């Protein structure tokens, strides 16, 4: 198996040695050691490691400053801080910049390995999360048909990072063992037509539209998550939903920085409904 390459940025040869020893005979290999922030940035560009361990006190710059520069060069870089200092302020400032985890020196081998494992498996989680999408697609199409009597003419899906609303979006947060959100997005016109179908009324108010589309989203999310919870079984893996919020406005971007999401578009006789489902790394 290909080893996971780690760059150590630490000015103390003793600390470099401790981290190297901690990673010995594991699936990680140390591909470089830098004693200054500048050298760390230089080696990062050259070596393109999978992970970086960062000390906070470097001779030429603050360690968090160095993290920020690395994340500017490569927003996907995975950095952990290994430092003598570890307090709430450091964790909050570091997390704000994008640091994945914090360890206090002297770090124990098992703690470091477990921490790195968590960061690496966050990527692996993507496969599970992709697998969850089928439950959302099933609940989405089934409820359009069951609740309105309309046919679903076609279902397409695409992966995307940024999302632009069509007029009315309902967002429901996903939390528990998996973190993410589901969003249903329609144009105002489709929202009105769809509400008429849901309520079986020829005339609907804005309030009817907001309530109906938000409850429709809640039902899709509830059905999907119940199915997923049945598959995940154990209580500690349970997923929960937060209540819906509604966004009204056109050309609105909805951004979840750490999230990759899928948009599923269902075409019906009255127009298209878009459901977007995204997850970030699990807990």
């Amino acid at each position, binding site marked *: 198996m290909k080893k996971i390459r780690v760059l150590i940025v630490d000015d103390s040869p003793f600390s470099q040695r401790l981290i190297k020893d901690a990673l010995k005979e594991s699936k990680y290999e140390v591909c470089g050691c830098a004693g200054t922030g500048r050298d760390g940035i230089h080696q990062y560009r050259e070596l393109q490691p999978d992970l970086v361990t960062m000390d906070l006190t470097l001779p030429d710059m603050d360690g968090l400053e160095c993290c920020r520069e690395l994340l500017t060069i490569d927003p996907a870089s995975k950095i952990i801080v290994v430092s003598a200092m570890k307090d709430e302020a450091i964790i909050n400032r570091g997390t704000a910049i994008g640091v994945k985890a914090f360890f206090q020196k002297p770090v124990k081998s098992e703690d470091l390995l477990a921490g790195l494992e968590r960061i690496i498996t966050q990527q692996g989680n993507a496969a599970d999360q992709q697998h969850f999408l089928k439950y959302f697609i099933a609940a989405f199409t089934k409820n359009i048909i069951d609740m309105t009597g309309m046919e679903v003419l076609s279902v397409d899906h695409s992966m995307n990072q940024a999302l632009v609303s069509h007029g009315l979006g309902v967002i429901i947060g996903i939390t528990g063992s998996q973190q993410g959100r589901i969003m249903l997005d329609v144009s105002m016109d489709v929202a009105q037509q769809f509400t008429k179908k849901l309520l079986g009324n020829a005339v609907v108010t804005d309030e009817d539209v907001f309530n109906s589309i938000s409850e429709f989203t809640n039902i899709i999310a509830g059905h999907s998550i119940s199915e997923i919870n049945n598959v995940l079984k154990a209580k500690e893996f349970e997923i929960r939903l937060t209540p819906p*919020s509604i966004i009204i*406005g056109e050309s609105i971007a909805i951004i979840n920085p750490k999230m990759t999401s899928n948009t599923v578009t269902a075409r019906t006789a009255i127009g298209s409904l878009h459901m977007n489902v995204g997850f970030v790394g699990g807990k």
Partner: protein
Amino acid sequence: MDVKMINPFIDAIMNIMPQLGFQNVVKGKLSVGEQFVESKGITVLVGLTDQLRGNIAYNFTEVTAMSIASKMMMGMPVATLDDLAQSAISELTNMVTGNAATHFEKDGLRVDISPPSLVVGEKFKLKVSSAKFLVVEMIADSLVIELNIGIE
């Protein structure tokens, strides 16, 4: 909804902002909102569930969001709300809501929070899950963050 519900959020801002480099953090106006939150340009939504259910909408102007992101990144100039700045603002709301959740837990209320959704646009409004919500302004070094707290 009980007006005391805002205290954990105020405490969270008072606790977190100084750690990110803000010197002077004070509470501004408090009011009750109905129906819609009018966005100032950047609104971040965070959901709450478990023993407390609701939504928090953090409302900023774009200039304020950029100034906060810049300070969080140790003074790095932020000219547009790029990926790094978006991530910083999301992380701020995540920290504040997480910190408030910890305060609620100390009072015996279990709260779980969703990842933040950052909403950006020219003109839009939002409905948080309750018809009435509390609006509190927090001012950090003259930058105004408006919290709209809707708890069911």
